């Protein structure tokens, strides 16, 4: 684990302009520096999330923390992107069924040069393009708008089909919440993707165990989840969603396999709130606000310092901006 302390908006150790070319990298040669870099990027997601939600005064910390390593691995290892070219037609696409975690994505899009970093500072303020949910009409680099849970897999499938008609091949990654599995449209899209042999469609389920009203299994059970995807004609991979090495290896393998005719579903086992102990333990943090005095402690915990016992008792401070 790297020990460099990062305060505020993080620098970009590997240079923002790097275009990952995972095709030529065998999974075996995942270098320690790569792992360290991806872990650092995941921390960056968490830290920026805290910083931005402090502006909004309410937001989805825990939904973002659970997929921080996914964001990092996708945007700094798996996806083919070009710095400063958010509309490059051959880029890989990324869609968020769980659009409410966009706060963690924006910093990465800024880092890729898709829009000026200063925009981050006005997160959710009148006139700023960055809201709780990602908006393709406002934010360069957002491949599709979301917010209404359940549409994204359909839209991603559409991109695959459109790409096919336009004679382009790119991969389409769609990140879904585990609560999102309850929306029927997801299964319409899942069935259609298998039927269309959309091998370049990759669904990622952030299996963090919680949705708004509590534990997914209590609210509306979705298990056996892998069986569901398999029965809908998908190839299923289960992985530790906080292990960037495992994630990168898996995504590289998926990218290298150009003959796959089944769409692939990655079930990423995660912790909702990962990185801040009391958020991991309290479902109410789905939507919350860290009082300013708690921010530093949360940041310290994310940076690898143990949380103080007082903090471990905390629950979410009240947001007033909803």
């Amino acid at each position, binding site marked *: 684990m790297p020990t460099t302390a990062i305060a505020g908006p993080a620098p970009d150790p590997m240079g923002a302009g790097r275009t990952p070319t995972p095709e030529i990298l065998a999974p075996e040669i995942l270098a320690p520096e790569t792992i360290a870099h991806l872990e650092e990027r995941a921390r960056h997601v968490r830290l920026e999330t805290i910083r931005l939600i402090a502006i909004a005064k309410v937001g989805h910390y825990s939904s973002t923390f659970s997929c921080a390593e996914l964001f990092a691995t996708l945007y700094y290892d798996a996806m083919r992107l070009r710095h400063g070219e958010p509309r490059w*037609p051959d880029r890989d696409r990324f869609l968020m069924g769980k659009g409410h975690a966009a706060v963690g994505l924006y910093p990465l899009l800024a880092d890729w040069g898709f829009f000026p970093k200063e925009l981050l500072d006005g997160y959710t303020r009148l006139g700023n393009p960055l809201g709780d949910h990602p908006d393709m009409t406002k934010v360069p680099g957002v491949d599709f*708008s979301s917010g209404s849970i359940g549409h994204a897999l359909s*839209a991603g499938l*559409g*991109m*695959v089909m459109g790409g096919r008609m*336009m004679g*382009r091949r790119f991969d389409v990654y769609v990140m879904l919440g585990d609560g999102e599995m309850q929306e029927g449209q997801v299964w319409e899209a899942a069935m259609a993707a298998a039927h269309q042999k959309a091998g370049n469609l990759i669904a990622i389920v952030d299996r963090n165990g919680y949705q708004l009203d509590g534990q997914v299994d209590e609210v509306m059970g979705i298990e056996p989840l892998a069986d569901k995807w398999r029965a809908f004609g998908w190839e299923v991979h289960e992985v530790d969603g906080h292990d960037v090495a495992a994630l990168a290896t898996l995504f590289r393998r998926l990218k290298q396999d150009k003959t796959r005719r089944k769409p692939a579903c990655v079930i990423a086992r995660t912790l909702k709130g990962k990185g801040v102990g009391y958020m991991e333990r309290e479902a109410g943090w789905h939507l919350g606000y860290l009082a300013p005095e708690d921010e530093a402690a949360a940041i310290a915990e994310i940076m690898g310092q143990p949380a103080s016992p007082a903090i471990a008792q905390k629950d979410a401070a009240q947001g007033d901006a909803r």
Partner: protein
Amino acid sequence: MTAAETLAGPVNPGSWQYRQLNARAPGLSYLSDALSALVEDGHPVMAGTADLQYSNGLARFAARYPDRFIQFGISEQNMVSAAAGIATTGMTPFVATFASFLGLLCCEQIRMDVAYSALPVRLIGHHAGIALGFYGTSHHATEDLAIMRSIAGLTVVNPADGPQLAAAIKASADHPEPIYFRIGRGQEPNVYDDLPDFRFGKAIEHETGTDLTIIACGTMVHPSREAVRALRASGLSVGLIDMHTIKPLDREAVLAAAERSRIILTVEEHNILGGLGGAVAEVMAEAGTKAVLIRHGIRDEYSLIAPPTHLYRHYQLDAAGIETVVHDILS
């Protein structure tokens, strides 16, 4: 090229589908043919449907351009959101299903993924109104104009017949907004000859009159025209406007008619709330016109079931019925 030549696969020339496409609903061929013309002109269009390729005639397009056709099965919402995804790649998708399922079942996907996202998706809601007769309320769409009209950034068009649909599809090639096309069942008599003039948002004035002006849309233009002919022959000064574009509405046309006539009568195969009548009411009330508005259509109720022609008669939505309605108003 005849349908027999364009149809492939399970449909053979002697079959039911063949006759449906050719004899029973001649109006259906306009959709496929207008799309084919766009393809031939080099436009990156594609088509999709949700298990209704014979009802909307897209089987004809599918047979001609199989690579530009996607069959979505019975999953309309997936179809609309996927169409939006397709549109992000540079293709212009035309997706079609019964208006009840497109305009109602997919209303949120249309708002969010199509209209709000400002993607060039074209939505074809066919068999709108009560055209599906005894299939009942699930298959009727007398709310779709009101619903689609409430969605910002969406153009809403209700062509009167196949030729006007074809003209609107042709014109859509340069249209920046997503579009909801509301059409009938392809059995309506034509009002226009091939490819009439068409401009989005520009109503077509058929007749001017001082006693009353009918503003009609879609399938109601033809019977209204018949009615207007009879009424004028009987000495009444009755005008007729084909308001094919419900949104953006041609305000000037409404105001000019309201200036000229004492009474404006809207005629639509739709609830009298919120649709064409509602749109015209908004213009008139805001302008404070002297004319009064009367709305004719489905009176905020669910239609009976019966074969469509019987229903049109029952609800006075055929030529004779409209003529009677106008006579009753003017006497």
